[in-house]
């Protein structure tokens, strides 16, 4: 596909071109800088595990973002949905003493429900009042952060006074590790399975067909009997649920408790991941690994080559601008 190829070219040029310029400005040879980056991401078993962990943390919200985008909804609220999903998972997990075989499913379900509810709010506002979902989701990110902070330090406090985290989850609620000693857990496998399931849902089911129709040609979809309001609500709820599930896996897998700082912006980087993956769940898996590499290798790049880690943020931001900007322009032209 022509567009995918062009998008990929843009990304490669941005990553290596702008990355090189930034490194030169920091008086580092790009060869050394990128060498350190790759080496830090894939050099040892534990570094590979860290890259895949970062990929997993990006993959959930990216899949969520993609669902909304395919329905024509610009959900930039994955960060808040992920955070509240993580909070719900952490609180329930630490609050209720549950046996192993129900603990993990229930904790994950709590995360998905919380994220889904948070995504459903802008979906409902859009369906009922035609409110712009970009602004609603953007603002709800801030609300989510404040709400989680308030709950965890206030009415639903479990840790010490003033601590911005929940209590520790019992062992039964910990996701099994894939590589002991690393953060890589079975969440990676769950995310892969989810990607395949979502692709199937989007491409092969009536629900996916109607969701894509609503996104690609809303007026034609409406006249074909598709309820645009209901589709927006369900797509946003599902989008938020997948992001919320991601937050829950970070809590049950990596941290074993909820902490208000659990995401370094996964929900935002996920927008770039989803767009680079052309909103196709399987390509998003590939894109998430690439961005996971940037995340994990960035630390090594700073330590070993002296390139500021912010270069990774710079490149990610430019990718979002280049790909998302063009998509928004294209959709406005149609509307």
């Amino acid at each position, binding site marked *: 596909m022509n567009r995918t190829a062009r998008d990929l070219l843009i990304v490669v040029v941005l990553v290596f071109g702008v990355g090189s310029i930034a490194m030169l400005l920091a008086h580092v040879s790009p060869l050394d800088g990128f060498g350190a980056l790759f080496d830090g991401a894939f050099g040892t078993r534990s570094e590979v595990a860290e890259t895949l962990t970062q990929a997993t943390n990006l993959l959930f919200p990216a899949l969520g973002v993609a669902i909304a985008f395919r329905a024509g909804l610009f959900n930039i609220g994955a960060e808040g949905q992920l955070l509240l999903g993580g909070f719900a998972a952490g609180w329930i997990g630490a609050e209720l003493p549950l046996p192993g075989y129900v603990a993990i499913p229930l904790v994950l379900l709590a995360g998905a429900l919380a994220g889904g509810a948070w995504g459903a709010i802008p979906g409902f506002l859009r369906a009922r009042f035609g409110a712009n979902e970009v602004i609603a989701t953007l603002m709800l990110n801030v609300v989510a952060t404040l709400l989680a902070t308030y709950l965890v330090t206030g009415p639903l406090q479990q840790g010490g006074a003033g601590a911005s985290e929940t209590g520790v989850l019992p062992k039964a609620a910990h996701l099994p590790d894939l590589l002991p000693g690393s953060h890589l857990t079975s969440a990676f496998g769950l995310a892969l399975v989810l990607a395949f399931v979502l692709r199937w849902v989007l491409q092969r089911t009536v629900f996916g*067909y109607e969701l894509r129709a609503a996104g*690609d*040609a809303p007026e*034609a*979809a409406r006249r074909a*009997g*598709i309820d645009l309001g209901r589709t927006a609500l369900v797509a946003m709820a599902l989008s938020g649920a997948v992001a919320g599930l991601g937050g829950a896996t970070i809590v049950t897998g990596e941290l074993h408790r909820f902490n208000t700082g659990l995401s370094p912006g996964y929900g935002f980087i996920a927008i770039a991941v989803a767009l680079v993956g052309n909103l196709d769940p399987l390509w998003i898996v590939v894109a998430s690994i690439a961005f996971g590499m940037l995340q994990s290798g960035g630390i090594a790049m700073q330590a070993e080559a002296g390139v500021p880690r912010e270069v990774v943020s710079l490149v990610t931001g430019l990718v979002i601008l280049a790909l998302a900007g063009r998509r928004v322009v294209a959709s406005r032209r149609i509307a």
Partner: protein
Amino acid sequence: MQAVDGVDLELHPGEIHALVGENGAGKSTLAAIAYGAVRADDGTVEAAGVVGLVHQHFKLIERLRVWENVLLNREPRRGWSIDVVAARARVRALSESYGLAVDPDAIVETLPVGIKQRVELLRELDREPSVLLLDEPTAALAPSEIAAFFTTVQDLARRGTAVLVVTHKLAEVIAYSQRVTVMRAGRVVARHLTAETSADEIAREMVGGDVPALAARAATSNAPLLEVRGLSAQSGTSLLSDATFSIGAGEIVGVAGIEGNGQSALADALAGIVPFEGAIDFGGAPLRPFDTPADRLKRGIRVIPQDRRHEALVLDWNVRDNVALGRQRTLPRRDFDAAARVVIDRFDVRPPDPDAIAGALSGGNQQKIVVGRTLAGDPKLVVAYQPTRGIDIGAAALVQSRLIEARNAGAGVLLISFELDEIFALADRVLVIANGIFAGAFERAAIDRGRIGALMAGNA
């Protein structure tokens, strides 16, 4: 794909030259090459002076004023700012000079189609083109607007402009052009002085044989199907008030009227897009005012929307998935391909490929898909809103024949069209609509062209 192959075309100052051909014959591509929007692989284009192009689909900025659109990028300046007074005066002088009355300060999106066309034309005229290319300029115009439009074009030609009209409407070719070039499959197949040819001859050359005859009309039961009493509805700016009519099974009822006289409100009320007041009985049970389009589809009411690109097709999707649209809940996915092939075969869709992307097809082939899928589920009532808009003779005849066949098979058809010839060719009964009110009804045997024209213009 080769859209245009080894074509020579010469335009002379002061002449109106018609370029005609079937869908996909290469007319629009040729015009785009002449304008410079498309690069030719081989060959040259030479023009003395500026070349202007008026698109079939208007390229106006809807939210800006008329003068802002006309002078876009050529605004008269005063220092750093735009000289609004001079700009307004320039547009007013231009519109008076060509007899194209339009308010320079009107916001474009509030204007009717015919006036938008004037704005489009004024924008090109401001550049003082020596060659003016008009791509299907009358596709959206009412009969009276068409006459006024060509008066302007003839005036332009008298002033020395070379005008190329790309069209499929042969009556306009015969009435207004001096020379005709006929294209088929990317090549020029005939050139005529208009005075020495006829519409029939041109039509045969376009199609490459005889124009297909319409399907024969069979006797039908005419059993009551749709009974509408006191129907009022609003869709955007389109208003319909107090309409009473009926459609029988196996009957085509034509609604004749100039665009913007309540047709959209009528179609959208029946489609379930907008609520209505009044009573509609369909097949013995009422339609409810706040039903959704899905409810109407379930009842067997299917609509061919006016705007196939926005209201009917998902342009990014392939033909297969587009054919299923509207039946996605009832048609199993494994049957999508077979359903698409049925439509492709019955409607001669080219290319005959279910994987072809809908947006890449010509307008005629897009319309064949829309009409094909609408008739595929054996609908009880078909609302056909401008079913042959902007498509060529061959494709239009095919679409019209399929509508007659649906009627013969017992479907009721409400044909809303701005082209009187189409209504007269198809309808068993003609209703005339003007200002949102049904102004008259004529049986097929008693059609009075002059009277219908007067009623359409609002003269009761």
